[in-house]
């Protein structure tokens, strides 16, 4: 089963709980098995499995009626658009992980697909089944939100970035 650990990692990040992530990955491979005849030889198998994973995830969320509220997304988006803080000088894995955990969906998944899993914008649009402009907008907001959260973390840890902001 190709890409199993990788898909489980991404699914765990999306679902939040290991058991739900395992169900999602199982559903993904089952769907891939059933629709293997539709897989186009010569295309990217990894991207195809990600597309099925995303589709299964949105189906699962719809059935559980757990869509995030529009207000939450709007507020998050607005916050990110107002000001883009510089990235703090001191960064640690724990800090980045904690900050990223506070970035809301769907920005978080889009950032994972592009910045972590290194798919191109066009591949991400295909995987997420949205226009490429939506991918770019979600990425822009997601990355800015991450910088906001990192700046907050740095402030909480007393790693003040105001001096650099002022001088730049």
């Amino acid at each position, binding site marked *: *089963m*190709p890409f*199993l*650990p*990788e898909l*489980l*990692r*991404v699914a*765990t*990040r999306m679902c939040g709980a290991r058991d739900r992530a*395992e169900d999602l*990955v*199982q559903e993904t*491979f*089952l769907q891939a*098995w*059933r629709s293997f005849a539709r*897989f186009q*030889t*010569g*295309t*990217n*198998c990894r991207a195809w499995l990600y597309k099925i994973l995303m589709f299964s995830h949105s189906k699962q969320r719809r059935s559980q009626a757990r869509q995030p509220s529009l207000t939450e997304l709007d507020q998050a988006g607005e916050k990110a658009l107002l000001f*883009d803080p*510089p*990235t*703090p*000088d001191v*960064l*640690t*894995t*724990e*800090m*980045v*992980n904690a900050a*990223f955990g506070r970035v809301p969906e769907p920005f978080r998944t889009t*950032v*994972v697909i*592009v*910045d*972590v899993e*290194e798919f*191109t*914008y066009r591949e991400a649009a295909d995987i997420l089944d949205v226009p490429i402009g939506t991918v*770019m907008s979600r*990425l*822009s907001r997601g*990355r800015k939100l*991450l*910088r906001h959260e*990192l700046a907050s973390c740095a402030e909480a840890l007393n790693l003040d970035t105001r001096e650099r902001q002022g001088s*730049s």
Partner: protein
Amino acid sequence: MTRDCQQIRELLDSFLSSELTVETNHTVLRHLELCDECRGEADRRRETRRLLSAALKDDANIGDVGALRARIGAAIDADQPRGWRRAARYWPLAAAIALVLSGAMWWSRPVDAAAFEDSAGNHVACALGYPPAAYDAARIKKLLTGRFAGLADVLARDYDGYELIDAHLCPYNGRDYAHVIYRHDGHLVSLFAEPAVRGTLPRAEQVGTLPDGSSPVTAKSLHGFVVDAAGTRQHHLFVVSDEQATISNKARDGILSSTAQFVRKLEEQ
């Protein structure tokens, strides 16, 4: 921060993802060369991505997937029609299916059809428009960073009269090239090295073999340039020279061979 800096920072993330057009990409590169503040911000954003990848790709968080693999296998088995399930119990048939499937996966490996074309394109976009530069080790250290940092140190300053003049990271058409520029008798030659993430090298005429015999060297003529290529397990290497002043085999093999040794060490890490 100047207005230029503000505009460049809006582009920085797409620059790091190699998603800018060639022209915009070089505008960003030129700005970063001159602006310490924005270069620092680019480095921090690159570091943020590295740490995020390290955190999210840590297999220790996932643990053993053996049980899940077995569960999925059982689910797929249960999903098959009953007659098929009975037949699959016969191992020769199962082995034959596995053989066909692995063959299909082998043949379905994507081919990076634009690999030669993009190398020639970036040679035109970058090397030929490059300001005349003299070798500057400090400048190369500043501009050739990330996984390819240190590549210039393993390359000779001179291969058969071809003189190393500059090296930098050179994103182009979504590719993360390391770009090393050589000059000989007024002609520029580019070495490009990139991770082979888009598939295998397309077929081309074999014109030689790397001196250690590890990889064939193939070549294509495109738009007045000759692109020589060699591959390692995870990287593609290209040497682009003018069709009217093709690089000597000795220089080409020397450059490709040193670069192949460098990227193989990366692949072992």
